[in-house]
């Protein structure tokens, strides 16, 4: 009698499926190391996962805001009086409790917190910030506080990304960049416009075009928008009005819109900049009441102007389709500045993107309507002005000129609108920068006691170049082809102690007078043949000055040569020249 085999004996027939399963298991066990994702691949894969998570979070966030609004204010555009007055105030009390007791980090701008994660905390954003932001913003925006869902969405995306990045133990470099990747995903889903979100994160959070992170940001933004459109539909934020330039002189009307937008942006930023630190400086117990007080005031405003409550996308849509007379539009723009300032400075969590768009749409519509009233032959519909106006406020208030232009293009899908947008946005941006040197986000971070890098300052910082520091060579430039004796004679005739040598092949070498004298034992030998083997790094005049700092090493002098002819010396540069140039630039500043 034979004992039954524990497994299939070599001679026994096993089913093909069993065999396949066994071999697959073996392969997996043996090659687990090979299956592990490499860091860069994981980063890109993670960007997609982050995009999907952020998209889902934003979908749930928006649904929750709407559901809460329905619950507390009803389904009509004009809720009953008692609710309009009481709901924002009561919700404000709840928000204050949550912010003060449970989620202290949800106060403030999500953009700045993402930047802080990038520049200070190695990409770390506590996950309870995501939960806190979700809950408090649902309460705030759903109850009618004049704030928007974009900035919280951005921060939720960043928080989700941070949590995943940390738990997957990404490298320090990648984990730092993961928060902006999530921020782009969150913002893209909230705006339903991936290009603007990518540009915003590059322009305002990261501040540089880095190939390493750009791919991940784009992947995350696109994934989140796909998810958002999957569940909430592909409709843009607004129904876009038709645009056509009636007459070239109409560009003057858009310039006027730029001036109005610039002034409105200034008032908006100044109001926040003035009131926020003063309210924060009040005794701590008042901070429990500030959101409620702001809610009460907004509720009272809402009795006459219900349009200023909440994010206001429906009313922006109406403004873009000439549903309000220009006086009403101007009034709504002004009222929204006041209401949003009240909500934001009271410490109520929520974003200022939607209010900025709202103010821009209303101001734009008002300017368009006014101009159409007095010059009907010159201007098109007020709706087009409202559309341009949203970009104008974005440029003037948030100070992201690049994003502001592309946002209008992306939202409108109309390339022909670019000229009015550029004119209007540039004027608003210039006015805002002239009278408010510190941009909004930098101002907020400085009020919070954090000195985050200012992207605008970085953008506008004058780059010092090598041509600013180089000078003509003081001594002779030796030629590798000449005789060693001649070279020594030249060196002895000069006051310099270090000499540049131009070799026949275009390379450069350097030699001290003492070294030259020691090596020139045969005065008839060619100079090149007695030189040491080391080559001297060279520079070009247009390169940034820090390149010289990195390359100069132990050399007392480096040659600055022509880009098309490396043998052609344009100047020399020493460490002292570099340092002097930096010092001078600082003094001039």
């Amino acid at each position, binding site marked *: 009698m034979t004992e039954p085999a524990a497994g299939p004996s070599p001679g026994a027939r096993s089913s093909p499926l069993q065999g396949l399963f066994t071999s697959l298991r073996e392969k997996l066990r043996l090659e687990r190391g090979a299956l592990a994702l490499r860091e860069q691949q994981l980063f890109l894969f993670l960007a997609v996962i982050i995009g999907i998570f952020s998209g889902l979070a934003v979908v749930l966030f928006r649904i929750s805001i709407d559901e809460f609004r329905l619950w507390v204010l009803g*389904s009509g555009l004009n809720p009953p009086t008692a609710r309009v007055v009481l709901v924002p105030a009561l919700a404000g009390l709840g928000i204050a409790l949550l912010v003060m007791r449970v989620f202290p980090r949800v106060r403030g701008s999500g953009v700045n917190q993402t930047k802080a994660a990038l520049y200070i905390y190695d990409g770390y954003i506590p996950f309870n910030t995501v939960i806190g932001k979700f809950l408090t913003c649902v309460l705030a925006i759903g109850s009618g506080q004049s704030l928007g869902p974009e900035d919280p969405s951005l921060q939720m995306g960043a928080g989700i990304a941070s949590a995943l990045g*940390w*738990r997957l133990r990404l490298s320090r470099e990648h984990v730092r960049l993961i928060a902006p990747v999530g921020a782009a995903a969150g913002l893209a889903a909230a705006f339903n416009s991936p290009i603007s979100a990518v540009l915003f994160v590059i322009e305002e959070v990261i501040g540089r075009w880095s190939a390493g992170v750009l791919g991940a940001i784009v992947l995350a933004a696109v994934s989140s928008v796909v*998810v958002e459109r999957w569940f909430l539909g592909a409709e843009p934020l607004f129904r876009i009005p038709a645009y056509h330039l009636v007459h070239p002189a109409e560009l003057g009307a858009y310039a006027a819109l730029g001036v109005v937008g610039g002034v409105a942006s200034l008032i908006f930023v100044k109001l926040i900049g003035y009131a926020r630190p003063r309210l924060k400086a009040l005794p701590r117990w008042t901070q429990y009441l500030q959101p409620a007080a702001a809610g009460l005031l907004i509720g009272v405003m809402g009795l006459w102007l219900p349009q200023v409550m909440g994010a206001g996308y429906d009313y922006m849509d109406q403004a873009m389709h000439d549903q309000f007379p220009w006086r009403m539009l101007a009034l709504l723009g002004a009222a929204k500045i006041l209401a949003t300032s009240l909500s934001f400075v009271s410490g109520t969590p929520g974003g200022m993107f939607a209010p900025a768009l709202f103010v821009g749409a209303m101001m734009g519509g008002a300017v368009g309507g006014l101009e159409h009233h007095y010059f009907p032959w010159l201007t098109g519909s007020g709706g087009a002005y409202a559309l341009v106006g949203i970009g104008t406020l974005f440029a003037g208030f948030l100070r992201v000129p690049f994003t502001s232009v592309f946002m209008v293009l992306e939202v409108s899908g109309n390339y022909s609108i670019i000229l009015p947008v550029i004119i209007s946005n540039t004027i608003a941006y210039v006015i805002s920068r002239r009278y408010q040197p510190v941009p909004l986000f930098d101002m907020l971070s400085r009020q919070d006691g954090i000195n985050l890098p200012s992207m605008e300052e970085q953008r506008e910082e004058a780059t010092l170049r090598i041509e600013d520091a180089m000078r003509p060579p003081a001594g002779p430039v030796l030629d590798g082809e000449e005789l060693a004796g001649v070279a020594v004679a030249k060196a002895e005739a000069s006051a310099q102690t270090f000499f540049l040598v131009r070799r026949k092949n275009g390379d450069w070498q350097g030699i001290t007078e003492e070294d030259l004298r020691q090596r020139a034992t045969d005065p008839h030998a060619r100079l090149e043949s007695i030189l040491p083997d080391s080559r001297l790094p060279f520079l070009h005049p247009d390169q940034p000055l820090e390149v010289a700092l990195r390359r100069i090493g132990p050399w007392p002098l480096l040659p600055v040569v022509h880009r098309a002819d490396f043998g052609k010396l344009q100047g020399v540069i020493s460490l002292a020249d570099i340092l002097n140039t930096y010092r001078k630039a600082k003094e001039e500043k």
Partner: protein
Amino acid sequence: MEPERRCGQCGKAIPWGQVECPFCAERGTFFWSFRRETFLLATLATLLLLFVATGFVARLYHAQEQSLAASWHRRGEAELRAGRANAAIEDFRNALVYARDNTQYRLQLAEALAAAGRVEEARNHLLNLREAEPGNGTVNLELARLAKRQGLVPEALRYFHHAIYGEWDDDPIAHRRQARLELSEFLLRSGMKAEAQAELIALANDLPPDPALHAQVGALLLRAGEYDHAAVLFKQALRLQPNLAEALEGAGETYFEMADYHNAQHYLERAVREDPNAPRASSLLETTEGVLGIDPFQRRLSSQERARRTVRAMKQAVARLESCAASRGIPLAGTSAPTPLQQLWARAQEVQPQVRERVLAREPDRIAPTMDLVFEIERAAEQECGTPQGLDQALLLLARGQGGTRP
């Protein structure tokens, strides 16, 4: 702002508001202990679950949106029907919050706005819809109606034509016909008869077998002065429905306008039989009978009867002349520069001895010149004293027909 603190264990900066290093604390948690691959798989599984859950929530959300939109829309329709346009406007606006791109809701909002007298707002809504769908027949027709209401004739005509040649979701032929009917009415009201005739003739060539529609288009052709086409359409309507009162009345009126009083009498009598309370048909019948009763040129009349009618017409005309002159304070005899009425009265006095039944029966050639004088008197009296009634109207109609049924 608290100063930056670094963790003694891992060396990382501790975020503000944190007491302990969150990174080190998290490492101790259950999830942190997972291998990277395991955690990634767990993440993917969570993602899948969240995706499904979000799908479920989103479906409920959209269903709720649709239900709210439909509910506000129903309320709006009820308010509009009850004539409360302002309440309807708010309801339709609320409906649009939940169904932003619903063309029907926006159309009805525009309708409510127009009903509330907020024509400019209504127009803006419609123009927005037109921007999205320039060829939408319904939108163009509504815009045409608004322009019609505002008296903007060229704009109304443009939108009517866009509506006629536009796209319609259901039964485009009927909608286009309706738009052309409205356009024709508008043209007639604006006094643009030639344009209306062109539209109506185009419409008449392509009508379905609907007697009421034939009668309706026939009535418009009648108003446009296209009597031949109108008569054809009324007859077609009567072939489809012989007792259709509107068609009978229309046909009667058409023949009446064509001065074909026999046919007019035929159809008007039938019309009055079908609807004894039809005031227009009764009045026209009365006038027609008056015309036929006084016309001396009708066929198959005896010489005696022709003479009798001529005498009666002359008496009636002279009486009309005298009453008209009296009402205007014009003396009929003895002025050096006689007015037309005075001249006519003098001529009437001159022929009066010959206008006797016996004379006219004996000399029927006198009937025509006598009747010409009668017509001249009636025309002059109409010019001086306005449109007459009764027998004078009948005589005037005979005058317009240059002798009525004169052979």
